[in-house]
Structure formats: C-alpha cells, structure tokens
C-alpha cells in the first residue's frame, strides 16, 4: 500500500484523485447486533430488519497534487464515507474513483494498537498496520519516540497511558508515513494545546508540491490556514467547493452560528 516517502514523480496540478458521479448506498441492520434470534423474531413479526443509508449522492471531485483539500460538513454529511471510498475501504455503489499514487489514511488514531503491549511494541504494530515495513519503522523509531514526547513511558504498557499519551503516540506513528496522497480525518484533535500545535505543524510540513492532502475537520481556523480548497458536504451531496474562506463562511451561515470562537477553534 503506502510507502514511507512519496515517489516525487508528481507535478503540481496533476490529478491525484478523481471522483466521478460517486454514490454510496448501503443497508444496515436496525439492531446493533445482528443475530439469528433478532432475524427470526423480525421474520415472524414481518418487521423490516434493515434500513437503507444513502451516504453519498453523485459526488464529483478532483484533488490535484500540491493541493490541500479541506472537507467540511455536519455530522452524518458523508465526509468519512467519502474518505473511506477514496482509500479503498468502502467500494462505491455507483460511479468511479481513480487514485493516482499511494494513499495513506489517518482516519482514526491507534489503529492496530494493542493496549496490553508497550508503546514500543505498538509503534511496530501500528506502523505495520499503516503499511510500513519493519525496516522503515526501525529507521524512524527514534523520530517517532521523540515526536511523541513519551520518554521512558514508551516501554510501559499502553493500558497505563492517559488518553493524551495514547493519542500522541498514535499520531506520531501515523505522521511518519509519507505517501503520495494523505487523508486525515479529525486526527488533529490530539493531546494538549502544545501537542495540537505541534501536530498541526507536522501536517503543514507534509504539504508539498508532490503530495496531495485531504483534511476532514471541524476546526475551521485550521482549514482556513492550511487548505487551498474546501468542499462542503451535506447529506451526501457536494453543496459547494472553492476558496476556503468563502465556503467556510457559507457553511457557517448555513449552520446559523456565525464565526463564533468555538467554531473557529480546533475541536
């Protein structure tokens, strides 16, 4: 999948991701835990056991190399579903997605981690889960450990970590992967204010001419500062796309909350 460093083959404005007329519809069980018992009961009562979710509707989107695209929208707007489609985690039910380059996702922190193991072991586990090789992790271990600021705690079991320490290590591992296309979903809200700033700076470092970044966030100020373009999704549809300030202002007006400090801050 992803490589540690981008192949440096891409030129600015070359297409990195092309999303054409993509829709995503799926049926999900109404009951949280689908079981034989629930199905049998529903069948006997003639009740519907599933509901249909239209997560994305005819989405068209291009992301170019050298650009940072911000994605905004209310909860349930389809932001995460779109990211999962681009990353190949969820196949679309209509349309076509073309991805020109290696993709790495930072959709959740600590994916693949095992809390009963030490931070050190989890650096390997998380790195391998993210598609890195053992040699690549060895080569970057010191950098990851230093960035996480865990000190000796790196050898303690992760179940003894505070949520901030957990998130710091997870972000440090994830931020080491340097693919052609990086998708970050709400991953900047980690640790204390100092670490938040540090991780935001890391994301800014990752901006380069031969890389495309897609940033999903509710942190409007971050998006205003970081992105070239912002796309606003609502109920699975693209409402608008364009210059960050314009789109964000329109979105905030839509939410009828204005540019309150609470919205502009990282959440």
């Amino acid at each position: 999948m992803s490589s540690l460093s981008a192949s440096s083959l891409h030129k600015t404005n070359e297409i990195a991701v092309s999303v054409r007329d993509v829709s995503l519809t799926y049926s999900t069980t109404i009951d949280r835990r689908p079981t034989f018992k629930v199905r049998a009961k529903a069948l006997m009562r003639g009740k519907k056991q599933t509901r249909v979710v239209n997560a994305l509707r005819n989405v068209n989107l291009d992301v170019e190399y050298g650009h940072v695209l911000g994605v905004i929208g209310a909860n349930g707007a389809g932001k995460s579903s779109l990211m999962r489609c681009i990353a190949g985690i969820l196949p679309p039910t209509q349309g076509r997605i073309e991805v020109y380059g290696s993709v790495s996702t930072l959709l959740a922190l600590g994916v693949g981690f095992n809390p009963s193991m030490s931070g050190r072991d989890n650096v390997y586990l998380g790195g391998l889960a993210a598609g890195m090789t053992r040699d690549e992790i060895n080569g970057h271990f010191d950098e990851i450990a230093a960035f996480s600021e865990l000190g000796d705690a790196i050898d303690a079991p992760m179940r003894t970590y505070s949520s901030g320490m957990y998130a710091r290590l997870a972000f440090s591992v994830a931020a080491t992967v340097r693919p052609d296309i990086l998708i970050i979903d709400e991953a900047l809200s980690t640790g204390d204010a100092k670490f938040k700033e540090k991780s935001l700076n890391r994301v800014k470092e990752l901006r380069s001419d031969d890389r495309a970044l897609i940033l999903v966030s509710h942190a409007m100020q971050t998006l205003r500062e970081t992105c070239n373009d912002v796309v606003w999704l609502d109920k699975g549809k693209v409402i608008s796309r364009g210059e960050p300030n314009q789109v964000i202002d329109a979105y905030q007006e839509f939410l009828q909350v204005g540019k309150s400090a609470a919205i502009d801050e990282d959440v």
Partner: protein
Amino acid sequence: MSTPLQVYEPFKAGLPKLGKYWKSLWSRRTFIAEHSKSELREQHYDSVFGQMWLVINPLLLSGVYFILIVIIGGTTDTTRYVHLTGTLFLFYLVSNSLSSGVKSVTSGQRLILNTAFPRIMLPLSSVVIALFKFLPTVIVFIVIKAVVGSPFTIQMLWALPILLITILLALGLAITISCINVYFRDIASFLPYATRTLLYLSPILYEASTLKPGLLFLEYVNPLFPILDSWSSALVYGQSPEISSVLAGLGWATGIFFFGTYFFLSREREFAVRL
C-alpha cells in the same frame, strides 16, 4: 516508473482480482506475524509461565482422559491412551482455530473501518495462533509415546502431510465462520456446543475400527474423521494410513477452504458497513 493507479468501482457479488489480492496479502505477512504475536502476548504466552502453560494445558487434558479411560474405564491397552492424546491434540488445533477465528473479523472493527487491507488476514492470524499453541503438544505427545513404549517408525512421517491437510481445514473453517459471524453475531455462542459435538463424532474417545456398522456413515459426513483416523494410523501405530482416508481428508479440507475463501472474498468488501 509509472504512477500507480487504483480504480474503485461498484462490485457485484464475486471475487476481487486474485493476483492483486494475493500480492497485497503477501506484502502484509509481517503484520500478520506481529498481529498474531501481539495476541499471544496478550494471553501471556511470551512469559515463562505462559509458555509452560502451553505444555501443562495439554498434559492436564490428557491426564483427565487418562483417569477416564485407564483408571475408571479399567483398560490396560496403553495404545488407546496414546491414540486419545494424539488425536485430541490435533482436534484442538482445529477447535482453537475456530474459537479464535470466529470473532477475528468483528473484533478487528477498527482496522477494517480505517485501513484498506485484505480482511482474510484476520482469520489467517487466528490459525497462526492456534498452530503456535499446537506445536508444544507435539513434544508432549512424543514424550507420552516414548514413556508407554509405543513404536517409532519411518511411517510416522505421514503425520506431516496430514498436519498440512488439517491446517488447510482449520483455515477453511476459520475463514467461513468469521464471515458468518459478521451477519449472525450469536454464532460464537453456539460454537462451543458445535465443537463439543464434533469431538464426540470424531474418532478420539474411540477408534475408527471399533465403530458400529450403523455409525460408519460418520466417516463420510465428518471432515475430521478421515484426518484423525490417518493421524492415528501414522503417529500412534506407526503405520502408513489408508490412502483413501488421506484423500478423503484432503478433499474435505480443500472443498471447505475454497468454499470459505470464496464466501469470505465475495463478502469482505461490505464488512465495513456491517460492523
């Protein structure tokens, strides 16, 4: 060097491109090993006592059956005891693969929702763990066999292909049941009863040759029957197993493996919305 292009389009039921899938699975082999190791460490198998437990557990298990067969049952035939331990240990390779495989996909929810990888890696990892737990029982078995004076012959090497067939069967079963569990989460609750029934229907507490004619159909309907019978012939009696039994076991294992893999691969792309 050209830019790698990935195309994601709707899929109907069917298999993904197998070459690409295998390549992706192979590139994740280090992760499979590390993931399995971490699961074992979580169960403390990396500590001295944990590793001792890997040997003590099968010893205790065989001790229970020793009490049942030799002491309470009053049999003087030590070969029967060797047969019981040998086949029981192999049975537990399959049973452990099933019990750890059944929730392998559902417990890998975070990985599935956030990373693109071949999902079959998860039940595969469960079988790796079961195999790791099985290996110390081989040593226990050899010690028991030596103590009771059971013969060691060159025909015992038949155990190797039979073990490979068993691993293939365990893989097929783990892959199938992990996929079923995505749609019916209570399958894990039925599993202990199913494996216990399979234990009694397999030639473990008895030998295939002692089966009443009316029950011989078990030989054909139970995939483990020919495998355990061949395993016992090779390891316990030091004889070549019947080729028909080995082939029957291979047929079952291959059939279940291909069925399970097809079922899993044709479904795995919707796991992310089912979890």
